[in-house]
């Protein structure tokens, strides 16, 4: 069953078309990868889905009804996200960060906060229990009282996921969840995404680490220059010549040089698309 249906989403910045007529459907409990070279419009597409940008055209249907425009309403509807350049609340503790995520699912108003009746206490207790459970879920059991900014990088990424999960989403958007991670942390991140999927939450992720994407995703969509080049299973995408061309450029038929064969060999031999190492971390597409 489809949980999110984006139809012909387009985003123009003046004359630049950052995202052009992109369709994407996400099924219940599915993990979908969104890949493409730098500047392909992946993050802009994410921003259109989460209300950070208003799409110039197109519709996004979530669970049968169109998504609202404001970010907080979208989160309330059940679509949560993380950011490419982590955006935690740096001077709040890890636990507080997750508790902020509970905001949208709790109700206590000013009167109840000042009055502190039994309902207020129960809600606070439940929020904290839930937040601690989520910290444990992402593997940050001991970090509850640390400031977010003093956590190691990998932990910050996981905390951001915990905060997003605290809003009880049906669909989680992860913008480069492994950027800047070492191999060990990347493996942990993969396990974490699987665990999220195990909770029945659908995931869309932008990622440059191809081993990560192909090992994890049920389906992959390739975005090139704002347009969806193709969509399919990892095997289909991996073997598609156009994807390789999009990442590395076409193998030059008449390249100047002593051994054109060698050049072709370099680009084509493995049908497996570029190595993970080829994804430059420091050189990102436009920030959110």
């Amino acid at each position, binding site marked *: 069953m489809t949980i999110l249906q984006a139809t012909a989403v387009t985003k123009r910045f003046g004359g630049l078309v950052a995202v052009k007529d992109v369709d994407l459907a996400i099924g219940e409990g599915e993990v979908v990868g969104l890949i493409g070279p730098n500047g392909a419009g992946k993050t802009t597409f994410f921003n259109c889905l*989460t*209300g*950070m940008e208003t799409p110039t055209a197109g519709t996004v249907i979530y669970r049968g009804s169109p998504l609202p425009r*404001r*970010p*907080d309403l979208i*989160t*309330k509807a059940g679509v*949560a*996200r993380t*950011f490419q*350049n*982590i*955006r*935690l*609340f*740096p*001077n*709040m503790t890890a636990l*507080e960060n997750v*508790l*902020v*995520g*509970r*905001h*949208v699912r*709790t109700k*206590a*108003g*000013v009167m109840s*906060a*000042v009055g*502190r009746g039994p309902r*207020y206490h129960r*809600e*606070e207790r439940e*929020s904290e229990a839930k937040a601690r459970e989520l910290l444990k879920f992402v593997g940050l059991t001991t970090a509850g009282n640390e*400031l*977010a*900014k*003093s956590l*190691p*990088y*990998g*932990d*910050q990424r996981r905390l951001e996921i915990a*905060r*997003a999960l605290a*809003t009880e989403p049906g669909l989680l958007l992860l913008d480069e969840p492994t*950027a*800047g*991670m*070492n191999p*060990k*942390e990347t493996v942990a991140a993969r396990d974490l995404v699987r665990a999220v999927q195990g909770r029945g939450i659908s995931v869309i992720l932008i990622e440059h680490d191809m081993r990560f994407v192909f090992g994890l995703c049920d389906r992959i969509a390739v975005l090139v220059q704002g347009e969806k080049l193709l969509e399919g299973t990892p095997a289909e995408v991996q073997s598609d010549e156009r994807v390789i061309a999009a990442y590395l450029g076409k193998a030059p038929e008449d390249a100047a040089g002593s051994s054109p064969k060698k050049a072709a060999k370099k680009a084509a031999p493995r049908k497996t698309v570029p190595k993970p190492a080829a994804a430059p*971390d*420091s050189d990102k597409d436009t920030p*959110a």
Partner: protein
Amino acid sequence: MNQAAFVRTRLQARFGPAAALIGLVGVLLLVVGCFLPWAGFAGFPGKMLNTAPGGSRLYVLLLALFGVLFRLDWPGRARALRGASTFALVITMLTVLFIAYAGGGLVNLGTGAYVALAGVVLYYLGAQSLPEDDVVAPVRELPDGRWRVLIETLLVVGVAVGALIIFVIGLGLPTASVADGPDHRLGGAISLNDLTNESQFLCFLLFVCGAMLALSRLGLVASVGAMTKKHSRVLVAAALMSAVVFPFTQGGNGYSLRIAASIGVFAAAAVGLNIVVGLAGLLDLGYIAFFGVGAYFAAIFSGSVTSVIDMHLPFGLVILLGAAISGVFGLLLGAPTLRLRGDYLAIVTLGFGEIFRITVNNLDGSAGPSLTNGPNGISNIPDLTLPGGFNFGENHLLFGVDLPFQANYYWLEIILIAVVMTAFLRLAESRIGRAWVAIREDEVAAAATGINTTRLKLLAFVLGATLAGAAGTVNAHVVKVAAPDSFTFMESALLLAAVILGGMGTVPGALLGATVLYLLPEKLRFLQDLRLLVFGIVLVLIMRLRPEGLVPSKRRAREFHEPGGGADALSAPPGHRGTA
């Protein structure tokens, strides 16, 4: 800073081994000096003539007691000694200068002054030459035992009582005159009597700062602070008791109670502003206008003869309505402007503050409707009366003490502060408080986490305005007048300074900041034109030495002192950060 460190290194190289000896000799000389007369003539306040130390001599003597640290190997002792000796040096030199000036020359100094000067210089040199501490003083805990809870409770109560004592002394320092000296004027402007009197206050303030600095460098302030957190209910109860008994310590002096009540109003407004600035991070430069709305509402509807509306609403209703109307103004101003961020919001609020002041200045019937009496304001606001016939304007006999009528208003202030404080503390620790902090930290991320940022910012703004309005209605009754001059930008800036100086996001910080900011200009009044200059210098110094504020919130202290830098730290390129 670097230069000081360089000089210290040189001193350590030269006197290092003998540092403790030099220091101890200095301390001994200083103690002896404090028991000898400092002034060769009668009349200088603070008992400078006889042999019993009082006034500045007592402060120096107490700071000299830290000298025992030369013989103890406590962590943090070198830094503590440097702090104590520096302040002792400054107080001694200031007092000697004041005495010499009041007496008309150095010849009028007593022998004690010379002995003490020599001693304090050696004390200072000895402390500066001590080797650096290897470790930062730890937060100590009392050993477990039967008495632990009792001792901790007593210490926490002691904090509240100590604060009361410091406040009482600071407020009530002698206002004697130099009996025999001529009252000539310094530079033709500053009265000698004022100078010598206020030097007492200045020395006292320096003493408190020096002692607190030394104690905090020994880790004692943090240790006791941890206890107050553990027994926060005890602290609140003790602080409330201290505040309530304060009028009994004043011996019927209505003036000091009046000042205390004014500080109370100022502090209540500062706590309200703390919601807007400290929690939600919205820079509001026109906050005093909301205070003014409340004050004018109370002035108009409390039966003042100068009010154009002849109506006398009961006080409870005035407070509620004044607060509500102020809140409505907050809503009207906030709704269109809170989409702005940072500096833009500051400019709009600044504009609102000015609009309010100019409007009430002109609503005098000639330039607009007659409502506020224009620049004259509404005066003669009658004293409050409670339904039981209790009149706030009369002295009352309580527990055999005849209390001046100002005590009634003072206690009203205490209730107001208690209410505002409770609201602040409970909101800060709730889901709403967390959302405000999240907005302050990163508005985009807060929105993406499901927080309706516009609505919550508006809520902070309106709540702040409401509390200011309530404080304003009470203030109108305390000062009995509402006039446009009381609501200038300067007042908004002072309130903001109180919040930042005291420590953003904490109640004790706002209270302390408000007290310091209210008392300092009062006590510096004798400097006349130089007053604001000195005031500014003091503010700059405090911000330089303690950027997180006098009583920072835990979060803010960590913000400034924990690795990870500012908010930008999180967006640093991943490659630049250590990974596990």
